[in-house]
């Protein structure tokens, strides 16, 4: 393995060493000094994020199991930015007395899953994909039950591990059928051999359900609400943004390359799934009072919107999808950042607790409003552009009615996003959450989100850059 090969795998290698470094530092710290790990880990991750943007080597390793190109690097960088924000947001919570002992566990588990996702994104065959998927899933269950002294958190962990075992099983069955019918697990070969035979369609559907589970598409979404609600806020935001974003990236790449020959068929599947996901996600989100549960269902609905980009099947579609995930990272992390800041201070997570928040914490409320509007797709902030491009890609395929249903769903989603705004600005409350000043890391994180929400939309270079590395369905 030459130095060039190492450079090609730069993201994964640095991350893996980060995990080890955190582990080693943790072993050498006394119990009272454990909090020191937070700034160290965050700054190391920051360096990793910056390094990710440096010019990189592209190429193929291990006989095609692993590949990088400009697009995969971009996707990894997008995830890195999101993870960086989450790490910043979680520092207040990690410093709490009850978490002191296991701070390093948080970083180790979280970064391991990120390594898994990076491998998934770079995978060149189904074996690597599956390994990455498992690496990204199993530590996640541990993360979900991070605050295991709480019953709900433990429940979330066990629910996640059981559900994902089931979905992995089905996915693996699909992969074995693919191997059985084509005699290969390499993307290139499978892509050339894939056809519209019943067994291969069956294999594809099983693969799709496995990915649908990760993205929480309806009807594979039922774990989402319980796990999101039970997990600690920062883990929830990791689930809803990073894990989901990574899975979307992989799904769209695989669908556009490996399964290009049955595109006519998977478009119908995606069409169906997109509608059910949007509608069910919205209907459930309408009545949620717990902020985490609320955001969980709203993220399901958002996943339905993302499907429209995949459905487009063209370059606009992929660009719009990647762009939307980027926008979604900032918008959703803005919302989760506020929820996490409030939850860490007061332990309050219900929407009713947010009544009258604007009077006491105007800045948090404004950021929350901004995030809600961005998620709802209100101009002139980024969410509008994200949705516009997604729907444009679907319309380019002639799916006007689907676009119409999607926009109507966006209108319904506006209703519940406005409910949050209403709670903060309009509802009266005798005992609102008192004013508090967040610490520096949280404020930096929220600042990044706010800037992201504003800038990404207007600044067309972001979109253009993404467009320069994406591709349409490959033949």
């Amino acid at each position, binding site marked *: 393995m030459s130095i060039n090969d190492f450079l090609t795998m730069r993201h994964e290698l640095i991350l893996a060493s980060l995990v080890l470094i955190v582990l080693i530092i943790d072993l050498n710290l006394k119990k009272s000094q454990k909090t020191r790990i937070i700034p160290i880990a965050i700054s190391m991750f920051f360096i990793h994020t910056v390094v990710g943007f440096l010019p990189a080597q592209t190429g193929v390793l291990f006989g095609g199991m692993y590949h990088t190109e400009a697009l995969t690097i971009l996707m990894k960088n997008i995830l890195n930015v999101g993870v960086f924000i989450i790490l910043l947001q979680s520092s207040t919570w990690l410093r709490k007395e009850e978490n002191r002992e296991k701070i390093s566990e948080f970083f180790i588990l979280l970064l391991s899953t990120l390594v898994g996702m990076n491998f998934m994104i770079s995978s060149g065959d189904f074996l690597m994909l599956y390994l990455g998927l498992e690496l990204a899933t199993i530590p996640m269950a541990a993360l979900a039950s991070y605050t295991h002294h709480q019953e709900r958190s433990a429940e979330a962990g*066990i*629910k996640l591990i*059981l*559900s994902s075992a*089931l*979905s992995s099983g*089905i996915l693996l069955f699909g992969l074995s059928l693919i191997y059985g019918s084509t005699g290969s697990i390499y993307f290139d070969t499978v892509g050339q051999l894939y056809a519209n035979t*019943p067994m291969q*369609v*069956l294999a594809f*559907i*099983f693969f*799709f*359900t496995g990915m649908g*589970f990760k993205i929480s598409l*309806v*009807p*594979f979404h*039922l*774990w989402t*609400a*319980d796990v999101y609600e039970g997990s600690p806020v920062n883990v929830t935001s990791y689930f809803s943004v990073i894990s989901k974003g990574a899975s979307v990236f992989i799904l769209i790449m695989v669908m556009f390359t490996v399964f290009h020959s049955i595109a006519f*068929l998977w478009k*119908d*599947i995606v069409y*169906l799934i997109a509608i059910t996901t949007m509608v*069910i996600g919205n*209907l*459930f989100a*309408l*009545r949620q009072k717990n902020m985490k549960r609320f955001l969980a269902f709203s993220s399901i609905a958002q996943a339905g919107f993302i499907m429209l980009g995949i459905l487009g099947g063209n370059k606009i579609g992929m660009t719009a999808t990647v762009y939307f995930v980027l926008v979604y990272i900032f918008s959703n992390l803005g919302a989760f950042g506020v929820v996490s800041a409030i939850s860490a201070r007061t332990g309050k997570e219900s929407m009713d607790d947010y009544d009258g928040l604007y009077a006491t914490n105007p800045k948090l409320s404004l950021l929350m409003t901004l995030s809600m509007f961005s998620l709802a797709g209100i101009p002139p902030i980024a969410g509008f552009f994200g949705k516009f491009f997604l729907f444009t890609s679907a319309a380019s395929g002639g799916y006007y009615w689907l676009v119409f249903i999607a926009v109507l769903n966006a209108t*319904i989603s506006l209703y519940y996003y406005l409910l949050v705004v209403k709670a903060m600005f309009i509802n009266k409350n005798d005992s609102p959450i008192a004013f508090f000043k967040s610490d520096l890391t949280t404020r930096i994180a929220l600042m990044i989100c706010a800037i992201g929400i504003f800038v990404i939309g207007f600044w067309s270079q972001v979109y253009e850059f993404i467009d320069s590395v994406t591709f349409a369905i490959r033949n």
Partner: protein
Amino acid sequence: MVAAWHHNKILFGIEFLVAGLTAFYMFRLYYNIFWGKATHYHHTPHEAPFVMTIPLMVLAFGAMFSGFLPFHALVTSDGLPFEAHIDWSVAIPSVLIGVLGIAIATLMYRKTTDLPSKMANAFGASYKWAYHKFYMDEVYLFVTRKIIFAHISTPVAWFDRHIVDGFMNLVARTVENTSMSIKGMQSGRIQQYGYVFVTGAIALVLIFVYLW
């Protein structure tokens, strides 16, 4: 009237009659106000101040002498003067009917008599109709209040609030109710989640492998 005489005899007849009626009611007013018994007023009547009498005089002057202005040449429809000579067959009866109207008014209202009430009784219904201005105001009020307000506008307003707006609200409420009623799908039981998952996968397979 000359014009009417030349063009339409029926119109002339009506105008002729109206001329007599005008003379009659003008003098009825005149006798009732300035003649007859003095009634008691809240304020003692007095002559109007100059601000009122001067315009009155100007108007009176105009009324008396404006007939001598050459209007037939000044105001025309086609730019040519309207040539009208005194047509005695029109002029004499007109003056006569005017005088007749004045005479009847004098007879009835010069002194307070019971002649007017007798006449009123004699004409009966038509007097009453005329007295109530042929009920035109009542008709108008009926049309606006009873028909437009009560039978068009109120139903329209009701329709708008309850049917049109009600429909919009119904749409919203249906969405909310659906949201309420499907809450049970999210039971919290992991077995059920797995069941739905597998069912979903199988349904997709059935649809896209067999039905497509």
